[in-house]
């Protein structure tokens, strides 16, 4: 009787501190099992030569940093993939201004604007696989709409996905379609919270057009821009489905990115190098960590500023 009383008191005394943790526990356990643990597992596997079949303990051979050494010094495919990741990172960001532009354009009250908004949002709703297929047909060298269009303007036909110098850009362009829609939605919700009084005041002071956008609207859209930036950067690093469906990494491996190369080496039809794939995954993880670390730091700073 006495002890329960003490216990109750102890919990009562610490209720405020403990309760949040109790709520967090299920999530933390899941996070540990499905995210944190596999990260360390990948690190471990990357030190082995292992075909991914049979257990690591009996079939794996410990080779230290040899996988990394090969990746960073002698693997041309890895360099190509890394460069392509960089291209994705840079060009994918174009979806942010594009999304902003469409959002500004759609942010008006006319008849049926909801329909237009949903039509513009449509590419984000359909599966990436479908987007990939649509663009594959679009680029088709014989029958595709793309060559029809550039032929109309007087250019020679191009085989975008079959040309090793163009294929990555072709896939990125396909990726921009849904990503622009995503950024647009983020900005549309952001525009809802733009303070009309500030806009009114700015207008009285004579601000118009670009100036109004740059000095009055955009600063208020900063949270939306930040989120759009985060999802676009992460999205570009995880690009996989489009590449897989549109080019299968080809022609001759010229449109691979790290995530696709990792899959190819460790899990694909001819891929039996689990250790090597894990090493690629670790490097991709480290690259992502740079961005994720930056985002977390930014959010932390913002939180500190607002709280006090």
């Amino acid at each position, binding site marked *: 009787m006495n002890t329960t009383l003490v216990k109750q008191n102890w919990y009562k005394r610490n209720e405020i501190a403990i309760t949040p943790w109790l709520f967090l526990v299920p999530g933390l356990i899941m996070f540990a099992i499905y995210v944190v643990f596999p990260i360390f597992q990948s690190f471990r596997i990357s030190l082995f030569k292992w075909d991914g079949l*049979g257990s690591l303990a009996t079939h794996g051979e410990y080779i230290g940093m040899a996988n990394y050494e090969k990746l960073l010094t002698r693997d041309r495919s890895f360099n190509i993939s890394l460069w392509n990741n960089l291209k994705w990172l840079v060009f994918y960001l174009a979806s942010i201004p594009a999304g902003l532009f469409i959002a500004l354009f759609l942010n008006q009250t006319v008849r049926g604007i909801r329909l237009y908004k949903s039509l513009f949002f449509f590419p984000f709703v359909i599966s990436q696989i479908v987007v990939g297929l649509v663009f594959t047909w679009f680029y088709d060298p014989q029958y595709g709409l793309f060559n029809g269009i550039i032929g109309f303007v007087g250019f020679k036909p191009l085989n975008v996905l079959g040309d090793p110098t163009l294929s990555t850009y072709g896939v990125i362009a396909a990726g921009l379609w849904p990503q622009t829609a995503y950024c647009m939605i983020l900005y549309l919700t952001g525009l809802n919270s733009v303070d009309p009084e500030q806009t009114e005041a700015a207008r009285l002071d004579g601000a118009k057009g670009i100036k109004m956008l740059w000095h009055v609207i955009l600063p208020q859209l900063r949270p939306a821009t930040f989120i759009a930036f985060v999802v676009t950067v992460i999205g570009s690093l995880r690009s996989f489905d489009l590449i897989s469906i549109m080019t299968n990494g080809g022609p001759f491996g010229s449109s691979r990115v790290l995530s696709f190369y990792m899959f190819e080496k460790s*899990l694909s039809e001819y891929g039996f190098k689990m250790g090597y794939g894990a090493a690629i995954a670790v490097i991709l993880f480290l690259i992502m960590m740079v961005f994720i670390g930056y985002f977390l730091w930014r959010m932390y700073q913002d939180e500190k500023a607002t709280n006090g």
Partner: protein
Amino acid sequence: MRSVLKATAVSLATIVALAAPASAELTGNLKINLDTSNPAPRATMEALIAKFQAANPALNITTNVIDREAYKTQIRNFLSADAPDVLTWYAANRMKPYVEAGLLEDVSDMWADGTDIAKELASTKGALTVDGKQWGVPYTYYQWGIYYRKDIYQELGLSEPSNFDDMLSNCEAMIASGRKCYTIGNKWLWTGAGWFDYLNLRTNGFNFHMQMAAGEIEWTDPRVRETFANWGKLIRMGAFIDDNQNKDWQQSLPFMIDGSAGAILMGNFAVSPLREGGLTDDQLDFHQFPAITAGIAMAEDAPTDTFHIAANAKNKDNARAFLAYIVSADAQTEMNNGANLGQLPVNSKASVDDDKFLNKGFEMLSSNSPGGVAQFFDRDFPAEMAQAAMEGFQEFMIYPDNLDDILDRIEGVRKEVY
């Protein structure tokens, strides 16, 4: 030989009873994973399984048909995590990683001397053998070769080439008439590997090819370069359709059908879609890949598709009975006939369907392939080697001038793989 086959009529029930002597009728479960997702093979397999079911009404059979391309990556998961009893796969090096990882059941007992399987399937035993043991049974194989538009050849006054010079001069005539000589869709890489197989088998011979597969020959070797030089002749004269690097093989067939390309190097499975595309047997014909280096024995590619038992299977007795049923002469005859798979039966007592292309293929493989029979590039060469080399082939077919760089790269992989 075929008359003997027809005389051997063994009823289904007897075969099954023979295969599982312990119990005349099977009970329990049998889980089958199939990669035969194309319409005709799928219907064939389902019909055969239905017959097996009818012979064993007490048996509870579950069949999963998985998309053929997806199957190739899923197999490693289901073999270890959710093992079926019976599964389809491919012979030779393609099954080796799974054998070495202990994921496939050793079925040497079914192949033991004196058994029907040992007698009737002797020719494919080697392709199913790793470390002196057998790891599955074959269920079909098919010839590779050149399928061509006979009507176009006749129109241009061309005949089937018997050597490489004929092949080149035919091709020149074809190009002069505004057509391409060969259609190919090389997005998934293996179609180009077919060309390499044949050019190398004809330029350097079967033994050399197999030494390459075993990693004993450098890819920068002058003999290998000769194979590529022959290939380069065809590429540089514009023999192949444009933009072949981003078409799959199905997308390459319309060029044959509308007559803008005269021929295709492909396995016999291309016949059915070509017929469906509207080509009659008068228009479509088959010839063996012509000789290149005089005096080298002809050798062919004839890939074998296989059934295996998973090492983690729960109903291995039922699975063995099913395998015995699949390779039986009757099941083989029916499965491979023109209305079904349209391929060659593995059982020497089964009869080859009376189909123009099957007859030609069977004759070619049994009497005109003295050099040997290869499986196929990606089944003879180890996986990593095959991947790297096929990527090189794809590049070579578009940029033949990159050859040195391509060979250096492939050679680099060879040094690491073996």
